[in-house]
Structure formats: structure tokens, C-alpha cells
């Protein structure tokens, strides 16, 4: 049986490129901005890329960066797995809001698969698949990548989580009353909601280790079977997802040293996740990095996987922007901290009660 090694990564976020984003995460440099001209009579705090460069170009740049960092000369023998919640919706919106008609819209550029098509045209992958389970999209893609590599079905798998900001998601989350007008404060009392943001996370997973690779050691999922948008208040779905990932990694809860929480900053999500963490773990270190780069929706699983990888590589716990006045007694990280980190858990939860938890480990751990 093989293992799934993460051998090269890249991020594009509101904080900038990979280096900028990792620096922003560990040094609490929030890049979310408040806009008062998007929704009438309402301020929203969201994360948008600078307009000088297109999303498509950032997508290609980030994948090129991973190819350059990798031991591959091309992606011709690599399976591409894309996770996205909106695909080409932003392209559709630009045309529709300008022309007030669907006539000029190309369906192939609207769909989730539009992202994989852009990348396949450029890099010529062996094959490609796209996943869309809202905010767990790229976490599900990572789960599949891990399972395929363990079976030796593929040697190289590139996972891309990508979501461009669009009015559908900004107005949609606003209609639910969960879009904050300031940078989000996950797990805090009286938190005001989430910050939608755009982002791209790219991970190359291979069935052979490289000098500084990190293992995707476990992947678990579950369904709440409760409500189309609200999480199950019993936390059972979240807990089951976490248990499944620990079982898959063949480790105990007390071996997790840090949790990169889903932590959106909404009342319902954070309460459910905090209760799950309290019930399963004993004072484990936790943070939500969404307070710094926002909630990148379908890209969040991939981006937060890369942050988890960096925590393991640098042996540094990633802080949260504001860790004061917690609603629940969880051990939120306030500043970056040196720590001995063996395993990291990353949670992703989505509409429809779709839950995914991923466990990352250093490559020399006994049970990995």
C-alpha cells in the first residue's frame, strides 16, 4: 500500500501569492476589505483579488508554480482533480449583467468544469474530474486523491481548489444574514458572520515521498442529514467526519496537535464545530485562518490543507486574528507559536450537511 505525499503547493489569496499568504497567516495580516457599493445600504467585508490580473491567469500561474516546484517536467501523467463551488459563474455574471440576456453565455464556460478545461487546455493532464459540494469541494477532491494514491491507481494527482468571487455568493450569503461587515471573528461571542473571499489552492500529491513532503494521512466524511444550510446542532455530523478521518489515519484524537478549523464566523457553524472539538479533543490548539484570508468557499479545503502543511513543515501554530471573548472554552491560538506538531486536522463543512475532515502528518511518524 502506498501513501499520499503532498510534494508541492501554491496559493493565491487576497493576501497575494504563496509566500505572501503564508506570511499573512502566521503574522496576522488581514487583507479583507469593507465595501459599501456592492449591496445597497449595506457594508460587506469580503476578499477580492486586485483587478490587474485575471482569475484565469492567477489559476494558470499557481499551477505553473507547483509544476516548477515539483519533480515533474509536465502534467501529462497527472490526474487533475478540481474542487469549486461556483466554477465559471463570475464569467456568466459579467455577460448577463452587461447584456441582460443569456444569449451570449457559453454554457461550457459557466459550469464547474470550466476551471478544469482552462487548466487542461494549458497543461494537458492525463485526465481530469471536478467536484462541487459547496464549501467542501476541494476537501472532497483531496479525499479522493488520497484514496486513489493509496491504491496505486495513479502516481501523481494535482488537486486545485478554486473559487472566484461572484455576486451570486455575496448577495446569497447576505440574504441569509450571515455576511459580516468587518473581518470575521470565529468562535467569538457576538460574532457577526463570515467574509466571502476568492482564492486558489494547488497541491501536488504523489505516491512517492520527496525530501520535505507531508503526508495526507487520513480523510473522513459524513452527512448531517439535518438541514440544507444549517449544521446539525448536535454536532454529530461534524464529530463523525472527524472520527472517520482519525480512523483512516490510524491515530487517536490525542495525537492531533493543531486543528485548522472550518471556523467561518457564523453563529451556527462555530458553535457546532466548537462543541465537536471539545467533545473529542483535550485542549488541542485551534485557529481559523478565515479571519485573515476570508472564506474561499470551494477553495477553502485546498488552501487550508496547504496552511496545515506549512504548520507541520515550520513547526509553528497558525494564529487567529482575534481570539478574545470566546463563546466556548477552546484553545484558540492568538500569536504564532513554536510547537512540536506531529499531526494536524483540517475541517471543512458545507451546505447540505456535507462534512470532510483531513489529517496531515510528518512523514517519519510511526503510524503514517
Amino acid at each position: 500500500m502506498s501513501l499520499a505525499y503532498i510534494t508541492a503547493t501554491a496559493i493565491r489569496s487576497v493576501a497575494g501569492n504563496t509566500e505572501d499568504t503564508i506570511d499573512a497567516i502566521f503574522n496576522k495580516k488581514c487583507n479583507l476589505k469593507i465595501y459599501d457599493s456592492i449591496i445597497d445600504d449595506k457594508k460587506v467585508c469580503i476578499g477580492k483579488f486586485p483587478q490587474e490580473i485575471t482569475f484565469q491567469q492567477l489559476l494558470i500561474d499557481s499551477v505553473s508554480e507547483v509544476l516548477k516546484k515539483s519533480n515533474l517536467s509536465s502534467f501529462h501523467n497527472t490526474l487533475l482533480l478540481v474542487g469549486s463551488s461556483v466554477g465559471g459563474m463570475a464569467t456568466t455574471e459579467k455577460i448577463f449583467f452587461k447584456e441582460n440576456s443569456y444569449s451570449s453565455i457559453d454554457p461550457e464556460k459557466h459550469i464547474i468544469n470550466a476551471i478544469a478545461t482552462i487548466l487542461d487546455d494549458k497543461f494537458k493532464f492525463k485526465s481530469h474530474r471536478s467536484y462541487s459540494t459547496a464549501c467542501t469541494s476541494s476537501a472532497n477532491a483531496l479525499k479522493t486523491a488520497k484514496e486513489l494514491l493509496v491504491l496505486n491507481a495513479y502516481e501523481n494527482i494535482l488537486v486545485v481548489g478554486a473559487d472566484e468571487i461572484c455576486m451570486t455568493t455575496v448577495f446569497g450569503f447576505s440574504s441569509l444574514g450571515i455576511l459580516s461587515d468587518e473581518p470575521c471573528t470565529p468562535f467569538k461571542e457576538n460574532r457577526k458572520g463570515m467574509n466571502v473571499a476568492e482564492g486558489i489552492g494547488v497541491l501536488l500529491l504523489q505516491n512517492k515521498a520527496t525530501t520535505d513532503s507531508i503526508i495526507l494521512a487520513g480523510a473522513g466524511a459524513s452527512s448531517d442529514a439535518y438541514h440544507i444550510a444549517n449544521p446539525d446542532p448536535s454536532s454529530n455530523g461534524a464529530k463523525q467526519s472527524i472520527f472517520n478521518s482519525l480512523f483512516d489515519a490510524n491515530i487517536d484524537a490525542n495525537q492531533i496537535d493543531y486543528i485548522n478549523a472550518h471556523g467561518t464566523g457564523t453563529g451556527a457553524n462555530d458553535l457546532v464545530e466548537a462543541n465537536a472539538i471539545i467533545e473529542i479533543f483535550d485542549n488541542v490548539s485551534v485557529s481559523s485562518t478565515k479571519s485573515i484570508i476570508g472564506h474561499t468557499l470551494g477553495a477553502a479545503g485546498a488552501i487550508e490543507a496547504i496552511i496545515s502543511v506549512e504548520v507541520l513543515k515550520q513547526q509553528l501554530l497558525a494564529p487567529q486574528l482575534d481570539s478574545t471573548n470566546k463563546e466556548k472554552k477552546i484553545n484558540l491560538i492568538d500569536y504564532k507559536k513554536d510547537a512540536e506538531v506531529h499531526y494536524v486536522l483540517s475541517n471543512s463543512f458545507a451546505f447540505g450537511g456535507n462534512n470532510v475532515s483531513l489529517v496531515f502528518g510528518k512523514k517519519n511518524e510511526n503510524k503514517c
Partner: protein
Amino acid sequence: MKINVEIVSYSLINDAVKIENLNEKELVPKMMIRRRLSRSSKIFIYLASETGFKTGNVVYGSAYGELIDSVSILESINNKTIVSPSSFQNSVYNTAASYHSIISGNKSEISTISSGDNTSHTIMKEAGLVLQRVDEVFVCSIEAMNFKGVEKINRCDNDLEYGIAFVLRKTNDKATLVVDSISELGVPKSLEWMKSLYDLCRKDKRNIVEIEL
């Protein structure tokens, strides 16, 4: 890596415009939930019932997702009217499988694939992977495109509502079916592969197909 899977039950439903009888009142007795279901959700719940599927792992597929709710949101933003929270909640691609999980109490894993024209073939590959861990998986692929203005964007002669579902089990027995023709008038391209496989299925024999992961 290749594995063989057996299709233990199968169902298909389609209409050029709108499928009329999805048995909604019997399958979803609670009116409050029934009223919120998207068209894809109603088709999913019908197909699950027809194949006898209740709980277990699910691999769902749709190339275009919840177009009707997506269009509703776009129209609201464009017309400066209030975006419906229900439309937004229902606009994600995994909506249909999620509503079924809520109604049936299914807490198992659900994956949703949206791979354009290859969607139905890809969900079979994903199902093959899932069958490495569990005994049975429900696969379902649906397109529901009957939104106001679809004629301006739909350049194909496809049925606007179409759904196919299989219950699959892993087997070590030889394949009995081979998909070699995948083009048929009226079938959305994303569903062509499963439709071709569906056409090969026979009630009086075992229906086994080889899947490359």
C-alpha cells in the same frame, strides 16, 4: 486500475420539458420540506425510490447543477429585488443528494461530481473507488434545465429534465456489458455514458461492467 461493478438496480426518467409524475406527495409527506425541493431534488428522490435505495454512500453528478435557482438569483440581483434565501441555499451542486439525505436520514458520505460532458462516466469511476471501502453505492446523474429563458442558451436538442440512477456493488465476476456507443438524440451529453449503460441492462441477467478508476 480496473474493477468490475454489478448494477443491482437501475432507473431512468426524462421529459422534453418537465417530468410530471415524480410521486412527490408520497415520497416526501412533509409539505414544508416538499415545497423547498429543487427539481433535481425531486428527480433524485424519485430515482432513489425506484431503485430501492434508502441509505448508504452516494455519488451524485450534474454538469449544470441547480440552474433554476441560479437563474433566479441572477434575475434578482439584476432587477435589484431581494435574493431568495431558499434559492441561494438550493443553488449549490450537491443540493439534490443533500435533500435526499435529510429526508431519508442518510448520514453516509456523499460526493458530487460536475465534470461537464464526462460527468456520468466520472461518477461511475468515483463509485468504483468508493466500492473499495463499502459494499454498495448509489450513483445518480441528473440535469434539470427547465428555467425561463433556457431557449436562448440551449443550442442542443436535449430533454430539459433527465435522470438516471444505479445501485452498484463490487464483484469479482466477469463483465457482461461493454459501453461502446455513447451518442443518442435527446440525452444531455453529461448523461450519455450512463444512458448507454442503462440501455444495455437486462432484468433477466447479471449486469456487470468494468470500471477504470
